[in-house]
């Protein structure tokens, strides 16, 4: 299992992988956007290699995709950017008393995941199926044999190999997206469902494999913040835009212009389609794929997996915009701490800054870092999650 991760990270750093994802990014955008796609993608600095899920062989800049051609067409539900993946599902039969141990053993000997169904189809005997996933490159027979050995089974259990269609699980994952009424008169609706309230403000989304469907507490907290603070005419920066939901919502609330940035090409592709679905053109919304940053603490013996961010003021250079009236960042604790300088720098004095993607227990860490820069700080919470907001102090000089 560990070997697989090493391999993946190493693969992701090759220049071939970088140029490949760039190619896919451009070609997928052609079919999705009715505006010139080049306006949406002003720059692709480097691919965030640890977020590009490329796997499989990359030869001469072309990867082996089983669904490459079909995924470039617009599907109603499929992800806009193909996720190449070579893995198999293996159903291992064993006596139900052994299933837990066998499952753990399989995980130790090469399986990436194991699943045990509660109601088992093959349980007319005392046997159950442990369903496991192996990534490409694993010797399945050897793994199962070692696993069985390690728990004292006398013979290798019977097993069956199945190829999983990528679309199956992707569709399954997206089926959990339902229309959400975030607040009165504001809905987020999947593209394939008719809005329950046609009169309301409806944000139409095809999320693909990006984050932000209006369902998650952090998305709701940020949407409510934007809903309250946008008066009209503002310039918005959406850091970690995902599906673009926050930038799109801000524009619908009356903002004049929004920029969405993300380190994940899936996100940029999804946001691009969603802008179109909501009749938002590149004059209103620009999207940028930016390099991810590493903090020095994650450099150890693991293969170097990301390209270092170029400098702290990349956003400014990338977007050619001065400063923003509202900066919203729904990401994670560590990126929020590492990017504090950039986030603060990109805001005008007195601008509203909203930070989320953090658990309630992480609020103190955020306050420690950001209270130097923010005044009038407010913390809103929903379930275990929190959003910290405030205005950039006017008398800060950041060098």
């Amino acid at each position, binding site marked *: 299992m560990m070997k697989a991760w090493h391999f993946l990270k190493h693969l992701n750093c090759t220049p071939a992988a970088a140029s490949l994802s760039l190619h896919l990014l451009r070609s997928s955008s052609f079919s999705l956007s009715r505006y010139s796609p080049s306006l949406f993608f002003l720059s692709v600095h480097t691919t965030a290699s640890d977020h590009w899920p490329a796997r499989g062989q990359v030869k001469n800049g072309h990867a082996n995709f089983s669904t490459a051609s079909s995924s470039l067409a617009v599907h109603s539900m499929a992800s806009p950017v193909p996720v190449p*993946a070579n*893995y198999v*599902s293996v159903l291992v039969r064993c006596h139900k008393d052994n299933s837990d141990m066998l499952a753990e053993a399989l995980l130790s000997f090469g399986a990436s995941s194991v*699943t045990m169904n509660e109601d088992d189809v093959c349980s007319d005997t005392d046997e159950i199926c442990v369903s496991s996933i192996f990534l490409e490159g694993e010797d399945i027979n050897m793994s199962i044999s070692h696993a069985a050995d390690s728990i004292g089974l006398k013979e290798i259990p019977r097993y069956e190999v199945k190829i999983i269609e990528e679309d199956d*699980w992707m569709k399954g994952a997206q089926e959990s997206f339902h229309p959400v009424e975030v607040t009165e008169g504001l809905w987020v609706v999947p593209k394939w469902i008719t809005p329950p309230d046609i009169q309301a403000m409806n944000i139409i989304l095809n999320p693909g494999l990006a984050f932000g469907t209006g369902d998650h507490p952090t998305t709701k907290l940020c949407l409510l913040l934007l809903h309250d603070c946008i008066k009209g005419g503002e310039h918005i920066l959406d850091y970690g835009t995902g599906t673009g939901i926050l930038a799109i919502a801000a524009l619908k609330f009356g903002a004049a212009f929004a920029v969405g940035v993300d380190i994940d090409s899936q996100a940029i592709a999804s946001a691009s389609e969603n802008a179109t679905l909501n009749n938002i053109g590149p004059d209103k919304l620009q999207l940028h794929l930016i390099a991810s940053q590493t903090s020095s603490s*994650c450099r150890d013996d693991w293969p170097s997996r990301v390209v270092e961010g170029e400098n702290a003021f990349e956003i400014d250079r990338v977007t050619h915009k001065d400063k923003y009236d509202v900066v919203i960042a729904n990401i994670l604790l560590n990126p929020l701490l590492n990017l504090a300088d950039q986030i603060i720098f990109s805001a005008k004095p007195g601008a509203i800054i909203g930070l989320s993607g953090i658990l309630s227990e992480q609020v103190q860490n955020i306050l420690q870092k950001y209270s130097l820069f923010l005044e009038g700080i407010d913390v809103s919470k929903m379930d275990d999650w929190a959003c910290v907001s405030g205005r950039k102090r006017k008398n800060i000089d950041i060098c």
Partner: protein
Amino acid sequence: MAAKEILTRRPVAATIKLTVPAAAARPAPPVGPALGQYRLNLMAFCKDFNARTQKYKPDTPMAVTITAFKDNTFEFTVKSPSITWYLKKAAGIESGSGRPGHVTASTLSLKHVYEIAKVKQNDHYLQNMSLEAITKSIIGTANSMGIQIVRDLD
């Protein structure tokens, strides 16, 4: 488990176990197929898992157990890698000694042990153990692997 919990427990569809690197869950294999097959909200899991594993060193392989309920909701627990894993990593070795007690595989200092203990204390099931107790447990495991613990490494 409290009686109330048993009575109000939702029907379980499946139990999924997998290893996910801390703060790096993505909607891609193996997470994607494992969860997608049960119509679970993949992105919500990734967001939740990544947020909850912020305190671990990036890429630490976390052991995740997901209970998928029949109504497509889910719960999950996260455990940091085994003490054996940490010891091997700290000592820079692939496996313990073939003859622990007779052949030393490697040597670590108390400081290493203490650092490991601090990380393991984050694990839910160890939260009630004192740091001292966890440390003793780690030293025991180290000895059984043929790893010697010394006060200071020179």
